[in-house]
């Protein structure tokens, strides 16, 4: 599908400060900031990349302006399994950052702030700050359609456990 071979993928850094309802992530892209911003803030483009690949992404609403709403479903290929997400945009500062509230089904919404940092030479770092209203919501969002992933993950637990209890 792509004209050029995919470039090497960058590692995703995830930080979950213990005892907080916050998750920090950062990830680099070998593409200009203007392009990353444009794709990320355009509902028409969202169906091409958002959501796990085993789901279709259906964008019902994506009104990208302060106070504008967004509503997106992740639908399983057989149409039986629907994960509805919705929220509202704020803090739009092209092409530096924006915030949206992020709700899953009828659970209370949290917020996610995305920062687009120009690294020069056509490279961009995306930094995100997600603030969850409570742990139950955070867990529901993490596990939405990801039960299989969680099971696979159990196989890799020993190493992780060693890491999380490791002395400094």
């Amino acid at each position, binding site marked *: *599908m*792509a*004209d*050029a071979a*995919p*470039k090497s*993928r*960058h590692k*995703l850094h*995830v930080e*979950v*400060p*213990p*005892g*907080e309802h916050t*998750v920090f*992530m950062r*990830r680099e*892209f070998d*593409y200009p900031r203007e*392009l*990353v911003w444009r*794709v*990320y803030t355009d509902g028409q*483009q969202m169906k*091409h*990349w*958002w*959501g*796990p*690949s085993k789901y279709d992404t259906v964008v019902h609403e994506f009104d990208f302006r302060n106070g504008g709403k967004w509503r997106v479903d992740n639908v399983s290929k057989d149409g039986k399994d629907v994960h509805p997400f919705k929220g509202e945009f704020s803090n739009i500062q092209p092409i530096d950052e924006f915030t949206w509230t992020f709700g899953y089904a009828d659970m209370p919404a949290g917020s996610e702030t995305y920062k687009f940092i120009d690294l020069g030479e056509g490279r961009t770092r*995306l930094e995100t700050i997600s603030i969850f209203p*409570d*742990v*139950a919501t*955070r*867990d529901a969002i*993490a*596990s*939405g359609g*990801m039960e299989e*992933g*969680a099971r696979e*993950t*159990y196989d*890799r*637990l020993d190493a*992780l*456990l*060693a890491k*999380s*209890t*490791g*002395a*400094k």
Partner: protein
Amino acid sequence: MTPDRLDAAFSALADPTRRAILARLALGETTVNELAEPFDMSLPNISKHLKVLEGAGLISRSRDAQRRPCKIEPEPLKEVSVWIETYRKLWEERFDRLDDYLNTLHAREESQNG
């Protein structure tokens, strides 16, 4: 694991002393006195941390009244790790797909401009 318990595990892990205590207990069960040694801390202070860890289900203490050795309980730690890994997987896939899509778009725009 209930969300409350996961929450308790996250907040218990927020403290560096408690993480160090867990790291020590990962090597094997030990008494409060032995635990206190490497830390420049009074016994009541260490006991306070142990109480938080015990409340979060991260450690258990034997009923042996004399020594009351502490033991690590791995299950809640597993839950915390599973949560982080699940969340990471979701976003890893999302960003990898974004990468692919950016690649396609970028190539298309380059060829239009060139």
